[in-house]
């Protein structure tokens, strides 16, 4: 074992099993949270602001009113991963997502994850996590896959090192 191996990170990686759950926090979507995401992301697309515009049709799709930013799903999944990883010295390395259904004001959405694979490479340790978001009706509205790292050296001490 590497001299600089971080014991709690090693323990966390060794404890991972196929099916290990990654917990996520429910998020209540309102017109205000959508507006806050406009401000936070600078994405002021009228899809998220303008009900009149959203009554129109978009090719085959009709929304009937404003919808949440798809990237809010991405941000919530990413937050779920960092909440899980930071305390054990893990690193969120990759996230791939696609949206399955629009989210509207009044919906409550909950991210979740499930470990499906883990392996060691020459220089590190990794896991793949299936991730998804479901709404209050149990409908899956986003899904994807994350890749997370359990480094041999303390997270932040190698690739995250400051050069300045």
């Amino acid at each position: 074992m590497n001299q600089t191996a971080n014991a709690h990170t090693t323990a966390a990686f060794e404890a991972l099993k196929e099916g290990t759950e990654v917990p996520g926090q429910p998020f209540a979507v309102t017109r205000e949270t959508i507006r806050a995401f406009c401000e936070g992301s600078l994405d002021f697309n009228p899809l998220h602001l303008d009900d009149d515009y959203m009554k129109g049709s978009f090719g085959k799709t009709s929304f009937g009113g404003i919808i949440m930013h798809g990237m809010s799903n991405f941000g919530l999944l990413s937050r779920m991963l960092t909440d899980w990883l930071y305390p054990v010295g893990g690193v969120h390395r990759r996230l791939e997502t696609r949206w399955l259904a629009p989210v509207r004001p009044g919906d409550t959405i909950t991210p979740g994850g499930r470990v499906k694979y883990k392996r060691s490479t020459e220089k590190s340790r990794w896991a793949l996590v299936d991730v998804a978001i479901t709404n209050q009706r149990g409908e899956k509205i986003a899904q994807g896959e994350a890749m997370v790292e359990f480094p041999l050296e303390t997270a932040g001490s190698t690739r995250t090192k400051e050069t300045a």
Partner: protein
Amino acid sequence: MSAQFETDFWKDEKRRKIWDDIVPGEPRKTIPYLLTLEAIHKYCESVGDRHPLYYDEAYAKASPYGGLIAPPSIHILLMFSCTPIDDWMRSPGTINAGQSWSYNIPARPGDTITLQARALDKFMKKDRLFVVHDNVFFNQHGQVICSGRGQTIRPM
């Protein structure tokens, strides 16, 4: 920051490239962006994230990261911060059809972020017009922060 940011995406609509104009492989015009702690916090609040690595300087200093950082998904903000008003990502009705991002090192408050971006591909599928985006963000030291691919459905 958002005070000088044009939030009316209809303005300048005519100056933006439509699907027909987009040339895959051609670099997009981008602008450097000074990432402030205030902008990081505004983003964090919009996803309900209050992690002390983003808020508590003493905690962050004592952590392996050695100081305050931005969350990985800050690239959501950086995409709009590093592209000009006539960029086609702002075209009203642009629909995000999926994204994948790889993370190298965290962005930090005070970083000057630059973006290298292009449309990598465009195609038609199920009567819709798609563009594939290819993006890499760097800090002022030339280090890669993160890189990502996305697909958008272009407004018709």
